[in-house]
């Protein structure tokens, strides 16, 4: 690879909590090594230095919620060879997509004294609804080791090796007893994509779905299980309407119960 320049990395933010990009700074043991292999060309949370595009890899955090951001993502796409979305906001619209099920104008009036100063879109939408996305990394927040795997894969011209099966598989692998079967605790694990290492059940709580829907989720079967352990309709709706409420399978399932 003699003479090849280090790939240029850019990190972009839309509507979000900053947590997913912080994951990169939380790679305390790996950060200096990562910086040896990529050129951090645009990353305002970490540096004042700005290099102009185009960029080899753009990491995009956050969802599209304003007319200005809907324009900005198109410019970023044009400057980026690979565009990777990081986290639930960027891949499904995030917690702020709860507005998509309500009247956003009413929310503006609840929070702000001068609604006329606020410019916002009716829906909070994932990046892929606006531009082509090369890879979507799940999680609220992302798993930092998965983030490094994605960067590593790109640097080595291979597909990222990340599972699309459910959290249940991770529980079985770690030998965690099923919280739903053994304790009657409602758990989103059977329909949620793996990646966190089945964290919640290992702390004796039900999964709350922060990695979004698995590849082919049977949400109706899960709803039936939840009903059997006494979960009421309103709480079924709430269960599917958390950090990935606007991901198709979760949205549809929540609407089934909302209108039932």
């Amino acid at each position, binding site marked *: 690879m003699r003479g090849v320049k280090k790939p240029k990395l850019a990190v972009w933010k839309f509507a979000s909590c900053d947590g997913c990009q912080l994951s990169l700074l939380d790679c*305390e043991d790996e950060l200096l090594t990562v910086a040896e292999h990529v050129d951090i060309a645009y990353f305002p949370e970490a*540096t004042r230095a700005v290099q102009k595009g185009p960029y080899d890899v753009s990491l995009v955090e956050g969802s599209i919620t304003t007319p200005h951001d809907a324009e900005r993502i198109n410019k970023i796409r044009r400057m980026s060879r690979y565009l990777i979305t990081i986290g639930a906001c960027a891949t499904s619209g995030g917690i702020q997509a709860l507005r998509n099920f309500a009247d956003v104008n009413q929310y503006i009036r609840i929070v702000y004294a001068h609604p006329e100063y606020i410019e916002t879109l009716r829906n909070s939408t994932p990046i892929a609804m606006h531009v082509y996305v090369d890879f979507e990394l799940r999680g609220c927040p992302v798993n930092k080791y998965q983030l490094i795997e994605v960067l590593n894969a790109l640097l080595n011209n291979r597909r990222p090796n990340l599972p699309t099966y459910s959290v249940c598989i991770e529980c079985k692998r770690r030998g965690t007893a099923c919280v739903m079967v053994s304790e009657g605790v409602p758990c989103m694990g059977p329909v949620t994509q793996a990646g966190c290492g089945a964290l919640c059940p290992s702390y004796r709580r039900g999964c709350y779905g922060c990695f979004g829907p698995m590849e082919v989720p049977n949400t109706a079967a899960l709803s039936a299980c939840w009903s059997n352990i006494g979960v009421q309709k309103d709480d079924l709706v709430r269960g599917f309407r958390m950090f990935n409420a606007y991901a198709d399978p979760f949205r549809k399932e929540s609407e089934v119960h909302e209108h039932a």
Partner: protein
Amino acid sequence: MSTRKSRTLKVDYLARVEGEGALFIRLKDDNVTEVQLRIFEPPRFFEGFLRGRRWTEAPDITARICGICPIAYLASSISAMESIVGAEVPHPIRELRRLIYCGEWIESHILHLAMLHAPDFLGYQDALAMAKDHPDIVKGALRLKKIGNDIMVLLGGREIHPINLRVGGFYSVPTKDELQKLRPDLEWGLEASQQVARWAATLDYPDFERDYEFVALRHPKEYPLWEGRLVSNKGLDIPLSEFYDHVVEEHVARSTSLHSSMRQRGTYHVGPLARYALNYEHLTPGCQALARECGLGPTCNNPFKSLLVRAIETVYAYEEALRIVNTYEMPDRPYVPLEPRAGRGYGCSEAPRGICYHTYAIDDQGVILDARIAPPTAQNQRCMEEDLAALVPQFAHLKDDDLTWRCEQAVRNYDPCISCSCHFLKLEVQREYSH
């Protein structure tokens, strides 16, 4: 000096802060005529969609306001909900709550002071550039930060958006032996953080002080983290329930974050300087001695020295974490089971960047009827603007680039978390000279 009549300085997006915002400064004959922090972080409407959610969901949902200080949101919402039902948690749970908050302080303070703020003092664009000349400082900071995160992982499950905190306590608690595993790293960290404070004392701080109204929590026995009364150095001393009787929030066109001020008195300041000035007597004798060695008195009015105060607080967090690890006894059960009742509750905790205030009303089924949240950076917005208005004339002799950088550094004094406050930064300085 300058023969130019007008100058315009611009930075499109202020870096090394969390979130999106801009700064606009207009100068006429080196006098500041206008300073505006513009926050363009997209609004996310947490207070809107919290309505209709369960009271037990508020902690995990509000944590998503900020990935940098999720414990602050978890803590304040949990406290608010527990205050509605009058819950008291057992001593070991209270201790574990302080311990995980120490983890967040360590992680956030070290990230900010060593990697985001220190480069301004040493003239680097970022910590990676600084690491080439000061590898020991940056590597040491990374390890100190990691230990803070290790506390979060052990007690919370993960560094960002921990999953193990709940209304009433924790989902599961560590054994004594599991907690003891933190001890060697905490002992190393205590020593190393003291060295960081001594190093921070050698930085070149601008000569700049202001007479602030400091607002922080105060607790009768301890340096505040999770609880206390709200006090100030100008006479405020109130229970949490009276916050909105004294604080006014104003919505201005330039910001999606509400501006806070104190009725009758105006702008106030939250964060490390406020906590330190109002709670100095509750720092350990070791921290007080170290503060004196670093040239700090019991009050510090120089916002640039917030970096040094953060270092002292980091030492405190290491001492407190060690104390808890050494005295912990596992509780009988990880949480207190609680049933909802209709009412309003109040919660406030000391996020690394200042008080994070929550109030909720719920019905008898535990459904949230109303939510109001005052994040620390929103409360500091006016203070940042006033600092800049006072600072710019003092440094107006600087070249445009240097003045711009000085202004950015002054904003970073507050470790602003704009994602949080939106409820911030493009920097623009316009200079005009009359004939």
